[in-house]
């Protein structure tokens, strides 16, 4: 097992190097540049040149890349040209926001999706089954920004139950030891803050969690259907075991394998795929950060952010594979 993990981690190195080279070439191929983005279209040639010299952009590209990798290895992701902040510092602000949102969304998807899929499988071809299949199909077909806008309209604008934008009320000041606002509020025992943060989290989490919800429900249904037809389930029932014990111990436990895989992969996707939800709810996370960076040709932020995403995606995939092998003895033995 350990050898497998180490081998996979080593395989990551060329992938990440490849991503970094691609990114490096990509940001420099973008029309315009940080100098133009900072100074505006009508900037004079001298001032553009001055900024480019300042940023080291006048040097040959391989020199720039060499310096970038050298800094990267030392944990320095560079400095944002727009905010003049170290990229790593900004990352520490933005990433927790996205993690908080993604986990809330995934929680929503799991809490509703697994029971829904289970019930659908138990009532195979019945009304509940067909209804849940249809609902999950609609869930997959709903563009997240449209859903986000509708939720915002109904619950924030019309009913006024929930806030429309942001992570916390602008008038509220809470301390941020971790930048996970919910955790921050709990740690500082600011209970009103907890409620406020939760209120801000509800709508974006539902919007972001709907597609994973549909997918988790579908996979759970398919997995439970598979297991229900197994001989050992029939045996367990035949020997007179309480049906709820059969469901819990024999059906669910064995059906969870593919579900766990999907949950892992979807979490990886959510961590990187929240651009649209973050846009609608003005959520200051990774997605809106990247969008801004591309708009303002903020080279260091684009490179640092996407490289971080790539690392994240690769690690999530690895974690899924490892947990899969851990949960399934057949796979474990074959390695």
């Amino acid at each position, binding site marked *: 097992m350990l050898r497998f993990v180490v081998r996979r981690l080593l395989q990551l190195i060329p992938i990440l190097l490849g991503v970094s080279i691609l990114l490096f070439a990509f940001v420099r191929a973008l029309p315009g540049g940080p100098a133009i983005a900072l100074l505006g279209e009508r900037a004079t040639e001298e001032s553009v040149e001055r900024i480019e010299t300042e940023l080291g952009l006048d040097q040959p590209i391989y020199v720039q890349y060499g310096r970038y990798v050298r800094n990267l290895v030392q944990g320095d992701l560079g400095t944002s040209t727009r905010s003049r902040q170290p990229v790593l510092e900004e990352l520490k602000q933005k990433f927790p926001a996205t993690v908080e949102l993604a986990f809330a969304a995934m929680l929503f998807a799991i809490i509703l999706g697994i029971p829904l899929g289970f019930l659908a499988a138990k009532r195979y071809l019945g009304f509940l089954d067909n209804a849940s299949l249809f609902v999950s199909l609609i869930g997959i077909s709903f*563009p997240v*920004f449209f859903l986000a806008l509708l939720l915002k309209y109904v619950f924030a604008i019309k009913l006024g139950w929930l806030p429309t934008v942001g992570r916390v009320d602008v008038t509220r000041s809470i301390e941020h030891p971790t930048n996970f606002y919910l955790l921050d509020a709990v740690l500082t025992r600011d209970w009103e803050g907890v409620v406020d943060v939760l209120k801000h989290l509800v709508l974006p989490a539902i919007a972001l969690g709907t597609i994973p919800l549909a997918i988790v429900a579908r996979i759970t249904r398919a997995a439970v259907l598979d297991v229900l037809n197994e001989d050992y389930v029939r045996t367990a029932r035949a020997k007179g075991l309480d049906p709820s014990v059969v469901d819990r111990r024999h059906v669910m436990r064995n059906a969870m394998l593919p579900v766990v895989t999907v949950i892992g992969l979807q979490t990886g996707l959510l961590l990187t795929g929240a651009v649209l939800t973050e846009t609608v709810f003005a959520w200051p996370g990774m997605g809106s950060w990247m969008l801004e960076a591309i708009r303002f040709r903020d080279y260091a932020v684009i490179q640092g952010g996407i490289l971080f995403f790539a690392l994240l995606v690769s690690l999530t995939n690895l974690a899924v594979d490892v947990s899969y092998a851990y949960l399934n003895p057949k796979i474990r033995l074959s390695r």
Partner: protein
Amino acid sequence: MSLAQAEAHELELEQPAGLWKDAVQRLKRNPGAIIGALLISMFVFLALFADVITSYGPGEQVGSLGGNGSPPSSEFWFGLDKQGRDYFSRVVYGARLSLLVGVVSVSVGLSIGLVLGSIAGYFGRWVDGLLMRIIDIMLAIPSFLLAIGLVTLLGRGLVQVMIAVGATQVPLFARLLRGGILAQKESDYVLAARSLGAPGPRLLLRHIIPNSLSPVIVQATLSMATAIIEVAALSFVGLGPSQPGLPEWGLMLADSASRLEQGLHLVLFPGIAIVLSTLGFNMVGDGLREALDPKLKS
């Protein structure tokens, strides 16, 4: 009837219906697939006959400028937008654009993916290793960000947007076809054909690829849905096709997103159009998957 004719006749009777004939039969019995096909047909119909169905052009100003448009009425079914254009016409013409974008970008992704996938699957060894590492790199970058990046790089023309969305689908198709080819390569009929001396390329084109295509076709249908949503999403963040006044559903949504309260219908109609069209492709794709899956055949 001679003995030989009788035998031939019998052989004909025993001829199995074939994968596709079977699949069509099964699709016809699947209510979901039929509803999906009806939805797609409706949008194809709207796209083809947009100028007959609507009384106004998509950019034609028929009401007053400014304000928040007017709500649906008997004359303007979907109301007017804030530039005084008939919203029904714009949504209908939007179908033309979305279907076009879907078909072109999926074709782009499909064709590049197929070429890469078959090269990787057929040649194997270091060619496979190299191509799959490139695919891994593409997959490590979130697809929507990849599309955003490509649009920023290539520019915001309609063609560029379609290429960008298509490019994000390349890894998926390449992997699917590669997997299929790897599985087929070891099968008995390929070994048999090879031992009869069938040349490699012919084997690949006539036998292996056609037999690996069914998951690719299912994915292509589902990808139509993804492509429609992705282009709308690009427009939504301000990176869609940039021709002014283009009746693109995502753009129409984005234009009205900040004034939800004053003009909900301006968000609702293009949004519903996106949902219904993607729903159609998803339903047909699901139906196809069930129809083509040999495991479900018994």
